[in-house]
Each structure stands twice: as structure tokens, then as C-alpha cells.
């Protein structure tokens, strides 16, 4: 789950960079950058949950 979380974080950033390079219209760019950020947040949540579950198991 940690690996998936980290991968989603990085994938979200790649979407943001791709939007910057491939799109020119402001609204399209804004939409894809928001989507990239959304994916990053999902990745961050997954990563956090993985570590929270690890702490619970350690107890």
C-alpha cells in the first residue's frame, strides 16, 4: 500500500507536468492540474493509512 501511495503521488505530479506541456487552454490545464492534485491527495491518504495501520499492528 505504501508503494501504491508513493506511485500515486508521483503519477499525480506527472499528470500536472503533462497538462502543462500538452495543453494550452487555461480551463483544460486547470482541470488536469486539479485532477493531478486529486490523485496526489489519494496517494497521500493511502500512504498515511499504510503507516497508521503499521502503528496499530505494532501495538
Amino acid at each position, binding site marked *: 500500500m505504501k508503494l501504491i501511495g508513493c506511485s500515486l503521488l508521483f503519477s499525480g505530479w506527472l499528470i500536472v507536468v503533462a497538462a502543462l506541456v*500538452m495543453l494550452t487552454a487555461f480551463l483544460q490545464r486547470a482541470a488536469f492540474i486539479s485532477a493531478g492534485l486529486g490523485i496526489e491527495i489519494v496517494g497521500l491518504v493511502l500512504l498515511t493509512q499504510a503507516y497508521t495501520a503499521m502503528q496499530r499492528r505494532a501495538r
Partner: protein
Amino acid sequence: MNQVNPVNQLNLTLCLLSILLTPFAAAGLALIHQGLGRSRSAAHAMLSTLCALSVAAIVFVLVGASWAGHAGGAVHSFQAAGAQWSWLGNDALLARSIVLDGSPGSLILCLQIFTAGLAAIIPLSTGTDRWRLAPICLATALFAGLVYPLFVHWVWGGGWLSQLAANFGIAPFEDMGGAAVIQVTGGLMALSVAWLLGPRRGKYSDDGMATAIPGHNIVLVLFGCIIALVGWIGLECATSILIYAATPQQIVGIMINAVLSASAGCLAAVLTTQIRYRKPDASLSANGWIAGLVAGSAACSFVSLAAAILIGAVAGVLTTYMVEIFELRLLVDDPGGAISVHAGAGIWGLIAFGIFGTQSNMTLSNHLLAQLIGVATLLGFMLPLIHGVNLLVNRFVPYRVDRDGDWQGMDIRELGAGAYPEFVIHADEFIPR
């Protein structure tokens, strides 16, 4: 991105004065970290701060300055999609290309020795009471030599984030006082360290209830807040003049906005804790003060006074809730609240700068988009990089002290003596003579 004119004596004097004030930010943070930790790890906390500052300064000059580069300096870059992507500085190692004569390059180097150290000491408060000194030094070396210079180059060294206007027609990502470069990178490092270290022993009971482990000296914490304000003002003035060509007239605005953001953050935290817990919480209020400074440092004087107050107030409230969520819901033991204060409030400050103001001539929506790209880069690229580096170091030099050390305290375990030896009750003092 313009730089200070070395001929302008007023700018030079202001820069030097501002840079001289910057170490006070580190002093303030060190006092806060030490005060929020336990007394049995107080000397270790201060020594760790000194070691981290020392390692960061030396490694940054040896390697980091070369990779951080400066606007107009030599860079590693590649051409893609019709744009020039400057991704790493290419100055000579050991800062040999910089002449120490008061030139912009030398002033930036002087400032960044302190800013690298400031970013490096942020995670220390998260790892207090359990992060060993040797891995602290190693992690700091990698942070100041590899991770920090990379992002510094992207934002302050003429890298791709500062070139968004030239390459893609949107506003450049702007970080006037180091909210992203210093605070958020430091805060993300703190998050990674907290994940790897796990909570202090005794922090959570078997059924998952969090135990309050109060800081041992709240007076030091509150005094540290005042000291930090002085340092923050110096830091914001220096970066604004050196990196973003702020005029001496704008210095007044920077000072006023810094005080207003910090004050609003502190008062918001006081009010929030008063409403939620029926009494103001001193340590959370101190966190609110620093959160206000952190959030306000993204925009410095480039937002109105009212906006500075709003940015600080939201940061204060946000921090109060984030500290609780991290501690109670996510089981992240962060004694100094560094993740919430530096990463959380820093990200809010960067977005708020996009909402309330801009230094460039672009529209606010364009500027907000650029700020979001910066935040996405911090979360999507810098966090995995920082965490990867920490996982690697932790594999070879374990971060966490052993079980006995956890109970003994870091002072006795690692330094062999406590910070407050007079507080120890010696058994032989009670033996009849």
C-alpha cells in the same frame, strides 16, 4: 527573476542586515522544539539542532550551492515540448564560482547557508525523544546536499518552476519568503521522519488512546516565538530583496505583514482552543503563531494587510485541527507539531498567495494555477524523494533509539548527562552523615 544590484549600497546594507537576523529564526525554532520535548531529552534536542545547522552549512557550501545555482548561472537543462527545462544548477563545487565580495551570488550563498539549516532543523521537533544523533547528521547531510538544493534551484535558482511564464505562458511559481523552499520541504521531511520513527513509547495505550506528553518548558516555547519573529522578518526581507528584487520601500510592508500574520495565527489558535477546550492552550497557540509566520512568508508584502491577517488566522485554526488529526486519528506522534505548522500552514500560504495577490503582471487565476503546480510538485515529487532518501538512510543507520533509550531519555542515552543535573535526586543526599 531579477537580482539585487550590487552597486546599490542601500540594498546591500539592507540585505546584510536581513541576513544577519535570519539565524534568529533557527534560534526561535530550537527553543520551541526543546521546550515542547521532555526534559530528559532537552540537551540532546539543542545539540541536535546545532549539529544539523553545522552539517547543513558545510554540506550546502561543499555540494548544495553548486546544485542550487542562482538565476543567470550555469544550469543542467534539457529541451522538451518546445521548452527549456532547467532542472539543476551547474555551478562549480565548493562554491568556487562565487566571489565573496558582496555580489548577489555571494549574498544568496550567505543567506542559503542559513535557510538550508533552517529547513533541516524543522524535522528535529518531530523526532524529539527518539531520533538518534548520528542518523540526524546523515539525514541532514543528504537533505542539505541533495533534496533541498534541487527544489531551491527550481524556485529560486532560475529552474523550471520559476520559468513557467517564459515556457508556458502562465505566472511563475512564487515563494517570496521560503514557505515552499524552506517550510514545506522541512515539514514533509518531518512527516517522513515521523512515519519511520513511530510514536514515543507510552504515547498510545494498547486500546489506541493518545496520552498527553506535555512539553517541559512552555516559557521557552513562547519566548522562542518572539525570537522567531525577528528571524522571520530578516528571512523574508532577504529573500524578497535578493530573489524577487523587492525595493527597500517594500521592506516596511514585509515587516508589518509578518507581524500581522503571526498575531492573527496566534489569536486564532487561542480562540479555537478556548472554544474547543474551554481554556487557551499555550503550546497550540505558539504553534498558531509560527503557523501564521509560515503561511505569511509565501506572500510577504505582496498581499494587502487584511489578506495577511486572514492568511494568518486561517493558518492558526488549520494548525490546531491538523495537530489533533495527526495525533488522534493518524497516530502520528509529532511533539512539536512541525508537520502541521510547517507543511500544512506552508501549503495553505502558497495557495493563499495565489488567491490574494501576485508579484508578476499575470491574472490571479493564472497565478493560482502556478501556485497549485508548485504545491503538486512538493507533494508529488519532493515527498516521495524525501521519503525514499529517509528509507534508504534508515535501512543502514537506524533512526530510532533502542527501547532502553526511549525510557532513559536521549540525554543520558546519547550524551551521558542530563540537561538539568540539579533536578536529579541523588540517593546519597538522604543518607545520614
